[in-house]
């Protein structure tokens, strides 16, 4: 077996993915850069190191780990990471959010984009879907894992807690959920909109195994996702509360909800790209 990809290599990929994100959103003057940049390190770690997956996309995902994206608005991040994993041609990133594209504003299956197994965008649904897929893995005797990424603002959706109750009751322990805990949502800081309170205590009270991690630290992501994997199969679903910074990597986008769904202008793009090294070649 080949040596696993190193942390410095992953960080170089993340820099390129961040370039892809700001360039895609700038090109169409539409999309969600803030959350995408914040989750970049996690998504890169998942697809280049953690997930057992094949870019020869099989919608049924039999015999491989599954990844579901519940907070579908971070689509430019997902598309870049999928393309950089050779799920589809890198050049297709140019078509993001443009007419006749497979790279819809929010991820969809309708156009047949490899890597996407269920549409997301309307929030709160991805955890239920992931739990269902985990049940099928168990029925099929497939011991691979199901992963799902959610937003923190998304935790305000009631369906999340329906799914959380169901997963714990049914001991869905082949499931690892990650919450992008950046503390921001469209209208402002999460604590100023509807606070999540003690999210760790809430998930623990729902009988989940809870871990906490730093989502903009590649070492921490790898070690905690490895830990999460080791906690699977013990009768409880696992949730990873992952602290991130919205807009990470582009100084003027960092730490604010203002860049949730706003594209950079030409000058801002130029500034952003000077902060992000082109490591693998732009699309």
């Amino acid at each position, binding site marked *: 077996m080949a040596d696993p990809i190193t942390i410095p290599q992953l960080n170089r990929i993340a820099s390129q993915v961040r370039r892809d994100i700001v360039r895609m959103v700038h090109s169409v003057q539409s999309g969600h850069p803030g959350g995408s940049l914040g989750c970049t390190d996690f998504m890169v770690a998942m697809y280049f190191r953690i997930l057992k997956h094949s870019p020869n996309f099989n*919608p*049924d*995902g*039999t015999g491989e780990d*599954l990844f*579901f994206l519940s907070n579908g608005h971070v689509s430019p991040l997902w598309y870049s990471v999928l393309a950089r994993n050779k799920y589809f041609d890198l050049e297709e990133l140019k078509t993001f959010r443009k007419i006749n594209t497979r790279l819809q504003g929010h991820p*969809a*299956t*309708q156009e047949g984009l490899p890597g996407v*197994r*269920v*549409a*997301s*965008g*309307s929030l*709160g*649904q*991805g*955890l*239920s*879907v*992931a*739990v*269902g*897929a*985990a*049940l*099928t*893995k168990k*029925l*099929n005797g*497939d011991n691979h894992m199901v992963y799902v990424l959610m937003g923190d603002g998304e935790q305000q959706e*009631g*369906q999340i807690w*329906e*799914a959380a*109750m*169901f997963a714990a*009751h*049914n001991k869905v322990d082949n499931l690892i959920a990650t919450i992008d805990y950046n503390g921001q949502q469209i209208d402002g800081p999460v604590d100023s909109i509807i606070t999540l309170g003690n999210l760790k205590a809430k998930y623990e009270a729902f009988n989940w195994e809870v871990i906490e991690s730093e989502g903009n630290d590649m070492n921490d992501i790898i070690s905690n996702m490895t830990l999460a994997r080791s906690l699977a199969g013990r009768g409880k679903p696992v949730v990873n509360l992952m602290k991130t910074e919205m807009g990470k990597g582009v100084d003027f986008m960092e730490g604010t909800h203002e860049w949730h769904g706003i594209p950079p202008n030409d000058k801002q793009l130029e500034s952003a790209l000077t902060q992000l090294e082109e490591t693998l070649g732009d699309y």
Partner: protein
Amino acid sequence: MTKITYAEQKDTRSGFGAGLLEIGRSNNNIVALCADLTGSLKMNDFKKEFPDRFFQAGISEANMMGLASGLTVGGKIPFTGTFANFSTGRVFDQIRQSIAYSNKNVKICASHAGLTLGEDGATHQMLEDIGMMKMLPNMTVICPCDYNQTKAATMAIADHPGPVYLRFGRPKMPVFTKEDEPFEIGKAQILIQGVDVSVFATGHLVWQAIEAEAILAEKGISAEIINIHTIKPIDVETILASTAKTGCAVSAEEHQIFGGMGESISGVLTQHRPVPMEFVGVNDLFGESGKPLELLAKYGLSAEKIAAAAEKVIQRK
């Protein structure tokens, strides 16, 4: 044609339960989910025989729809079961995104539809579900007419790829279709041939339409009774062939007129060859408590009202 009769009355939801059990025996990929209404949906036999393939979702229908979507990834064919209200209105966005838009092989099975739910009243009497479901791209909408047909439809949709909405009801109603009759999705059934008026009915109102035919026959009017068990895709060919002969149409359904089967038929007629049409359905009202047949009479959905609509539309030719 021989006169249509029945020997017994049974509930369509029991047809669903029987069909689910039978198809579960021949197809290991069938899984079932229920939101705390296992007895009402007649899913107990499936649960007992296939405990590993039955999932109790509790009173959380939104999650149940998401679970069903996820279960398809890896080849399962989920059948969800709850009341029509909780199968559609409560979870429209979950169905729209995770099932219909994602084109997942989920069978949404909805009992206690319409006024004939009875005493529970308007909160539970779903009269808008056909409209919501038929508007969704990729969705097939089926509303069988009796126990035997509901059983056959339940088995047929398992082999039909893509999302399906299957609508049935609570009370015991006449069983008049044959036990061994195969169910052909999308193909309307001409139950009684006639030349003066085409009556298109669905669900429980098919039997009311059959009774209306007898009323009309006594008056010398020859009505053609057609069972529209598949509302989407609608059988354009059969509708046009019948109205070409009769020159007028009546629709009959246990649903709002707005957004119902009748609107689909009128769309076919106005697009291809307009004829006068009358609509028997709930006319922009919520229901109320009562016995099933009392409610059908009060809201204008009885055999007598279908016959009256037929006479009226014939006058408009």
